[in-house]
């Protein structure tokens, strides 16, 4: 098979997967769940770094990058393995009913693409959740570490609000209420970090 045909087939498979409501729903859950983890981790890193006297904004960004790499790897790897097991079990159920091996069929290929989409969504969540709140630290030389930290918490809460609104919208809920319910978690993490002894 030529690379062109291969690429065309991959693009078609990706479009089919993205049009599948079940694939979208599972991907959405992983994206938001891991993005939530990422944003809260980022707020914790921001407040903790400031309170422990990390000297520069760039150092905080580097800590955040480390957290993003860890969480994104966790997101992709765990979902890849979880979905492999889940989808294999689903396929085995259908194979039992069909009395045939379904390896190499369209169903099998669609499951593989769906698993890849789920894993990528799971990895993208924490990347956005961690990196966006870190961006104010790039301006720390001009605004100072205190205001960079305040801005980082604000951006983190904003990211959480966006995730909440997105989930709320898909469920037909009030996006402001749904966003606020998740955004409050960011404030809780910031306050708990601030109140922690030492």
């Amino acid at each position, binding site marked *: 098979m030529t690379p062109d045909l291969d690429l065309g087939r991959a693009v078609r498979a990706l479009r089919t997967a993205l049009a599948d409501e079940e694939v979208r729903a599972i991907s959405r859950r992983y994206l938001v769940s891991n993005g939530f983890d990422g944003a809260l981790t980022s707020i914790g890193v921001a407040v903790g770094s400031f309170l422990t006297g990390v000297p520069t904004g760039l150092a905080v960004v580097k800590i955040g990058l480390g957290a993003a790499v860890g969480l994104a790897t966790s997101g992709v790897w765990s979902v890849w393995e979880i979905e492999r097991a889940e989808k294999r079990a689903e396929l085995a*159920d*259908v194979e*039992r*009913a*069909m*009395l*045939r091996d*379904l390896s190499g*069929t*369209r*169903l*099998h290929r*669609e499951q593989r693409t769906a698993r890849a989409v789920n894993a990528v969504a799971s990895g993208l969540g924490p990347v956005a959740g961690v990196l966006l709140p870190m961006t104010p630290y790039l301006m720390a030389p001009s605004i100072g570490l205190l205001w960079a930290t305040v801005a980082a918490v604000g951006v983190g809460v904003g990211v959480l609000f966006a995730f909440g609104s997105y989930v709320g919208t898909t469920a037909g809920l009030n996006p402001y209420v749904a966003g606020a319910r998740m955004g409050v978690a960011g404030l809780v993490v910031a306050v708990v970090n601030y109140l922690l002894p030492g």
Partner: protein
Amino acid sequence: MAAVRRLVIDVLKPHDPSSVQVARTVADLPGIDGVNVTLVETDREVQTLKLTIEGPDVDHEAVETTVDELGGSVHSVDQVVCGELVVEGVETPQD
């Protein structure tokens, strides 16, 4: 050898792909003018379909390969019509 003008097959398939996808994929094969997919029975994991396929030159092997690739199985070939004229079955006293 005379071309197959009509093929009626009984297919068992998983719920996914849908009957619409099956009909479209089979109808895209060369030598086929139209496809009728009728749901015969539905179960928890599988569905039984009756496919009526018509065209100037229906390639039954290509149809079976396509059904197989879609994850289905051809359980039986229920009717084959070949030749210049599409001959309908006629009732006999035994019927």
